[in-house]
């Protein structure tokens, strides 16, 4: 029944099957082992930023998804006021320490691009966890793309940009008759759910 032979090509750094290119050497995606507390925080943040961007070719092969991912990472690192978002949803004012959340977020992305070989008899529990990470990341990037499109196409001036990216007014439960309420409600639901998930697993997605 199996008419197509399975192909496996081995090189020094990778195993190439008919479906995937599986990279053996992952060291450039992890943080170095030595104690990060000796280095100042700005440098550590830049180190994390570099690792997130290095993971870009593994997120997807399509340019659109890669570009969405890049602009998402840039927005998170450069512009987003995550504490404000968090406060609007949970009401918590104290800040969480930054570096552990960055580490957890990096782990999340690495999990979503990982591959563990499974067969009919051998299954790994963590592979299911990785699949959920991948699905969450995929949905996250889809909604990010929606937001970008929405801001670009419907905005008169930078009104929507201010709303969705700076002030996060869509997270505030007010009775104002905003325009586009149904679209904003969709974004509201998604963002709230995402922030609450971040609270439970310690990430900063």
């Amino acid at each position: 029944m199996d008419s197509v032979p399975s192909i496996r090509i081995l090189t020094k750094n990778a195993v190439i099957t008919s479906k995937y290119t599986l990279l053996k050497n992952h060291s450039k995606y992890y943080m170095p082992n030595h104690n990060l507390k000796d280095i100042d925080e700005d440098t550590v943040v830049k180190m994390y930023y570099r690792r997130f961007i290095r993971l870009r070719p593994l997120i997807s092969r399509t340019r659109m998804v890669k570009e969405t991912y890049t602009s998402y990472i840039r927005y998170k690192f450069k512009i987003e006021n995550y504490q404000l978002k968090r406060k609007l949803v949970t009401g918590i004012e104290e800040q969480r320490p930054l570096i552990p959340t960055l580490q957890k977020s990096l782990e999340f992305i690495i999990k979503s691009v990982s591959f563990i070989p499974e067969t009919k008899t051998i299954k790994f529990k963590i592979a299911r966890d990785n699949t959920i990470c991948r699905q969450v990341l995929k949905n996250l990037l889809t909604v990010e793309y929606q937001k970008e499109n929405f801001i670009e196409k419907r905005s008169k001036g930078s009104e929507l940009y201010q709303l969705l990216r700076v002030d996060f007014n869509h997270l505030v439960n007010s009775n104002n008759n905003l325009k586009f309420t149904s679209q904003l409600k969709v974004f509201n639901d998604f963002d709230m759910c995402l922030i609450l998930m971040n609270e439970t697993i310690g990430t900063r997605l």
Partner: protein
Amino acid sequence: MSNKRKLLNDIFVDKVVPKLKTNRKSSPLLTNFEKWSDKRKKLLFENELALLRSGISDFGLEKNIFAKLLSSPIRCERMAWSRSPADLLMQVKINSIKASNALSNKKFELISGIGNLKGSKNAYLVNSEKLLSKKGLSHEGWIMSILTASSLHSIDLQDILIDNKKLVAGYREQLESSIIAGLENVAKNLISRDHSVVLSFDE
């Protein structure tokens, strides 16, 4: 008489094309073939232990309600024509009314999708409840988009009984009863351990 051979630890396949052998003086095209292989790239871990050794842990997302909500497949929401995870949206189906129960001569009605497993073609997802109960809302817009998108082109708009209040109230009822049923289930099967916190409710 199987041709099965071991690949990556325990993966077995029927046939294996011989490994591509590379000479010491061969071109980068062969030695670094992964750059040109044009396949989806992933990080290879041989087994669970390799992942844990790299510092990657199990986040327990299987039991995390928010992660499960966010990982549900994307569906198109019909009020704003926007895409969102299906579990964050309300599912609506077109159900046929039995002639004896009919108060009007409509043949179909809108009901919510909870607990209705049959007829997956008819299901389309609409945005959260508050907006549905607004008075000034013209529901015909999204009904039309449900009909045109669905395979049921034969159903006329006039044949459908649209009662927003009934839909929303019915949905609310179904949600509440499923939450209560779930909590009751937990209460029955509760194994109390030391230091465990139990949240209970009154009817």
